[in-house]
């Protein structure tokens, strides 16, 4: 959990510095931040709830005929 958080802090700092250097619009900051937050949330959820259905299980439920 700590490792995931540290990795995401590094990714956020790196992306922030990249966006600041390139003078990007606030909208780009928001989009990038949202994707990083979504990725962090996804990893944390599957780390904590290992029994949660995976994407493969979802596909299996829909397309297994």
């Amino acid at each position, binding site marked *: 959990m700590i490792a995931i958080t540290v990795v995401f802090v590094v990714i956020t700092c790196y992306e922030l510095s990249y966006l600041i250097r390139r003078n990007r619009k606030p909208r780009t900051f928001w*989009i*990038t931040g949202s994707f990083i937050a979504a990725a962090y949330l996804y990893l944390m959820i599957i780390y904590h709830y290992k029994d949660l259905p995976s994407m493969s299980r979802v596909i299996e439920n829909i397309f297994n005929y």
Partner: protein
Amino acid sequence: MQRVSQIELGLMFVLFNFSTAAGFLIGPLSKLAGYQGWLSLFVSQAGGLLIACFSIWYGKKRSDEFIIHYGKEVVGKWINLIMMIIYCLFFIHLAGVVLRQATDFLVQIYLPSTPSWIIASTFGLVISIAVRSGIEAIFRCAAGFFFIIFSAAAIAPFLVGKELDYQRAIALLTHLNLKDLVHTSFPFIPWFGEMFLVIFILPLITQVEKTTRTLIWSSLISLLFLEVFYLLCIILFDDLLTGQFTYPTLEMLRFIRIGDFLENLDPIVVPIWIAGLFIKMSVLLFIVVWISSKLLQLKDSRPLSFSFGAIMVGMAMHSASNSVELNHFLQNAWVNFAYFVEISPLSYWLISIVKDRFQSGGREGKISLGEVDK
């Protein structure tokens, strides 16, 4: 705008088809098709090529625009958005599955006490960096790796040759059952139909009119190498034993002995082959990042590469509890899902035809009404 040449595209697709198929397809194919597998491989490659050619044919109608953009005009904003999200899910999940297969392979064979998440994360980092570097970097990397990978792949048959039991070869002609051919080829066509992804990057390719030709020659080269590897495995081990191995190609490579001084060449050949997997995963992840950035109208796709790379690693670790479950999924539900996604550009074409008919019908109706009014 046009940044990838036809030769780079072709070399990339040879690697794209060969890398996963040589490592992970020969076992299941042998189990299902046995001695007839060489013919099933041919049919699968032809079917995959057909799917990809249809996508190119449709994409060429508006080759200087991205389907992500003109799709809105064809099927409407919301359906196009849903389709693009499905494509993103398909490609990121596929990249995750390939990453999982590579991780399982490394953990089982070479790094048994290393945690699989370490291998997946390291691989994911390298792939994210490649995606961040852009499409030119990935395709040029593929062109460079091609000669290294295929030099190693071309030498292998000569080194294994003396170990083969050539008397088995007659079964390749006597054990043919054309009735089973559809049943034994059907699950493997989507493995090659993945080439349809070219529709998303068509405006980035030079001389678009030659794309179909490029796909045909790249498919033929990859098919040639796959057939040679399949025949080597089947003649060396028999169809039943090949089907029982998790990695028959690796077992075949382990038979290589050059005199008394060079034995077990697989630690040299396997890292070279893994470079092909890296190219495949990079291309798949790039397509996801590219579609997302175009949908969100971002200037460049780089800021999304690490977050999608992390999601890919998460999907790889969470996709199945073991490799048996993963293989079962890949031969059953995934096949139907992949057919659905790979043939879906057909829906764009059909909707555009229906729209054209209605519009031309409406126009004709208005004209005839106008004539009556006059």
